[in-house]
């Protein structure tokens, strides 16, 4: 199930620098080279963190997402940019719950990608029970 397949157009995100300087903003955008941990003191007043994927090959955003979820962030976590259907399942496991792909993705393909995996070998940020735990109860 896709919680949010965004097409854009709602509340604007501020940059990390702008957020850290002023900030009563509730939505911030994180570039791949920016440290997600800089947001940890402010997580309870953020409603949206948008993580940029300028190129799908750049996987730093996966770590950013996990770090934010592991720190207790419960707001919307959005993957924006070169987000392709074949990356979405991993993104969801890392804690993303909304996706704003630059090029539209067929919702049926997204659905298939997100329901394909019967289980997962390792714990991540999506709360899925890893296979080793299923094995041992």
């Amino acid at each position, binding site marked *: 199930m896709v919680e949010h397949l965004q097409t854009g157009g709602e509340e604007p995100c501020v940059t990390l620098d702008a957020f850290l300087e002023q900030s009563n903003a509730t939505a911030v955008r994180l570039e*791949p080279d920016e440290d997600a941990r800089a947001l940890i003191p402010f997580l309870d007043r953020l409603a949206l963190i948008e993580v940029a994927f300028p190129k*799908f*090959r*750049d*996987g*730093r955003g*996966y*770590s950013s997402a*996990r770090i934010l979820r*592991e720190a207790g962030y419960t707001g919307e976590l959005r993957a924006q940019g070169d987000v*392709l259907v*074949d*990356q979405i*399942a*991993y*993104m969801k*496991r*890392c804690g993303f719950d909304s996706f704003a792909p630059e090029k539209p993705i067929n919702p049926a393909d997204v659905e*298939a*990608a997100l329901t*394909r*995996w*019967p*289980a*997962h*070998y*390792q*714990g*991540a940020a999506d709360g899925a029970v*890893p*296979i*080793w*735990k*299923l*094995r*041992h109860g």
Partner: protein
Amino acid sequence: MYKYDEYDHAMVAARVAEFSDQVRRRLAGEITEDQFKPLRLMNGLYLQLHAYMLRVAVPYGTLDSRQMRMLAHIARKYDRDYGHFTTRQNIQYNWIKLEDAPAILEDLASVEMHAIQTSGNCIRNISSDQWAGAAADEITDPRPWAELLRQWSSFHPEFSYLPRKFKIAVIAADEDRAAMRLHDIGIQIVEKDGVHGAAFYVGGGMGRTPMIAPLIKDFVPLEDMLSYAEACLRVYNRYGRRDNIYKARIKILIHELGADEYRRQVEEEFAHVKSLGIDPPKAEFDRIAKQFAPPALDASAPDAIDRSDPDFAVWVDQNVAAHKVPGHAIVNISLKPIGGIPGDASSAQIDLMADLAERYSHDELRVTHAQNIVLPHVRKADLYAIWQALDAAGLATPNLDLISDIIACPGLDYCSLANARSIPVAQKIAARFSDLGRQKELGELKLKISGCINACGHHHAGHIGILGVDRKGTENYQLLLGGSGAEDVSLGTITGPGFDEDGIVDAIERVTDRYLAERSEGERFVDTFRRVGMAPFKEAIYG
């Protein structure tokens, strides 16, 4: 051997379904080659000079006869009747059609095999000691840990778009048969005060900037191994360079940060990651370890070997190694016949090795990083029968660790990255030194050839290494001396100006002649080189 349970089966089946769908979308033009490339790479499918190449994972180099026969079947049905065993203990097929790939993956899945993460910027197949479970010098079998790491790293959601590929090796003996410190992470299971733990060496690798991995942590408690690996990877994923593909491996990050600063960052990340509960309980390790229980070997089996056939005796002396159980031995099958292609085996040869494993080696085979095959658990009383069968199939070349036991990458004959051919050079060197007496006189001499700077042929780690380069449109071969991928790990040094294809063979002969003149009693080539240095060899080569 590890046997899949329902979860493992379901995961591999899901992967086959996923990739089948991706191939379908690619063939239908729904995704571009640029988008398809990382997906096919994560399923081991490369586009090479002439065709697609499929690399099949052989986790930690271990397989049974049923799996080995499937490798022969794939070679026969989908390729040109042969396969190529690689320095990563895998096998690759050079002539695959894209539309056949899903069917091949289904065939592999039917015998609990796959091509998952044998390529791409992700955690690759875990490699290990080919004598695991059989060698007398190991403190434990490293493969259960390798299997635990295999599962943890499979479809890892955070580490599938790393800056660059990532290779992990696990060993549990002081003798390093897996080039452990030339991996992105090399893990050695060690013992301290009667307790086993993991020594983590991080940031080794070959390629254009070879590095020997520094020790990052001397003793990670085994129950923390996955958390520690996760911390090592997370620091790399976040801070590894992505601006330059040639500087993207973890070795460059650690070199630029310094081992101490990298260690500090890993320790900080580990303190956090450990709280996430990602390490499986001991019960899961025990479940896996039970499947690697040593085979029931009869320690009272006869220890004597009838050496009356002289050709057999020569093979025993060179290719058979000591087993930890009396009356037994480890058989090393050389895939390096004089004039052959290093690492290649025909379907018939693969089937024969499967038959021998089933009959004589408790149904187990291993692939080695030196591109040979091992029958790990053989009764000494069966050696003669095994040798006869191997000899009849062209698989009894008695040259293990001799100069003709050459590691070579596929080179410009197949590879789209290569600058020069490797295979013909390997063949010419083997032909020049074909006399077995001469090879044995030279003793242990590890010769490794790469057809480009990416170093798939491990030239940096060769006692003698050869690097093929392109010099103004012609193939040119540089010579390196003094490398090692073993426990005495070191990187080779370039002798000087390079040579053409025949010139490199002559240069090697001048080097080995000089070694024979210089060596002291009991010294291997690399020992002499380390003692006397480059100068005498340079003089011998260039005058």
